[in-house]
């Protein structure tokens, strides 16, 4: 069982940030009303975070990652779920590399 102090500090910071996001809604609703702009922003932010996180590595690696992302999106939407989408994505990347894509 090993632990790097710097990693532990980072995990602590992450836990605080997660708790702030989770608790923020409870606290905000206690003192504030439901402002339409804020609610709309919060509604769109999660999807925006996800595509932002995905797009840079996909563009940087290209080839197999692009195939994997397309397959992931299609299978998730058609097969309807997290697990099929994830397995299909990883399998598609492996197949793409086997076929010569980098």
């Amino acid at each position: 069982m090993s632990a790097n102090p710097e990693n532990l500090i980072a995990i602590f910071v992450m836990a605080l940030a997660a708790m702030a996001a989770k608790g923020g809604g409870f606290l905000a609703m206690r003192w504030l009303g439901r402002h339409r702009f804020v609610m709309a922003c919060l509604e769109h932010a999660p999807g925006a975070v996800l595509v932002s996180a995905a797009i840079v590595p996909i563009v940087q690696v290209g080839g197999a990652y692009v195939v994997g992302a397309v397959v992931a999106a299609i299978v998730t939407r058609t097969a309807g779920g997290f697990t099929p989408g994830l397995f299909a994505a990883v399998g598609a990347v492996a197949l793409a590399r086997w076929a010569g894509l980098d």
Partner: protein
Amino acid sequence: MSVSLSARVTWRSFQAGAWRMVLPGLALLPFGIGFGVAAAQKGLSAFEVTLMSLTVFAGTSQMVALDLWAQPLPLAALAASVFVANLRYFVMGAALQPHLPPLPWYVQPAVWHVTVDQNWAVNIAEYRRGHGDLGKFFGGGFAMVCIWSGSTLLGHLAAGGVLADPMAARRLGLDFVGVAVFVVVAAILFRGRRDLPPWAVAIAAALAAKWLIGGNWYIVIGGLAGGLFGAWQEMRKPHVRKS
């Protein structure tokens, strides 16, 4: 406003809440194992992976953070990206809060901690029907955090075998697991044409941030840009209808 959530927690309701979340929790296994493998590839120890899963308990944001995980660790970027990636819990908490009875201050963080997608979804319906139970909510959260942390540890231990070889992992496509999670969850969240403009703005902002600023701020910048644009788009709707 009706307060429908009992503040009383019993062992029986805790158990009932835990048992009913086992099956939804099992759906986290592939994600958790994938996170454990990815975390091992980033050099985190089994203890660190388990501690992170227990204390952060928010899979997508943990995966986002892993994307930023490089020495020296960018603490501000990690905090900002975890916060932004978890903003959906802000909305969930806001929806749940009106149902909560007054709780002692020391209980409230525990309620926040177990506010995660599946546990919130299963329980909020009961709260709205007036059958909410804090014990079930805590029990469900306990089951979920155990399954999530256990699956990430399992993934980390699996990575100690054949998956420890970066070339083998690459051949198997396992280096894509982290990115695949983002794509799959985004595909699940996608609600049609109304999401396209904010997502396009997020993508453009993320790419611009990566190439103009460098570093790993692109997730935060893209997320905020997409969220703000989506909100602006929603605010414009009444004006569009009037014209």
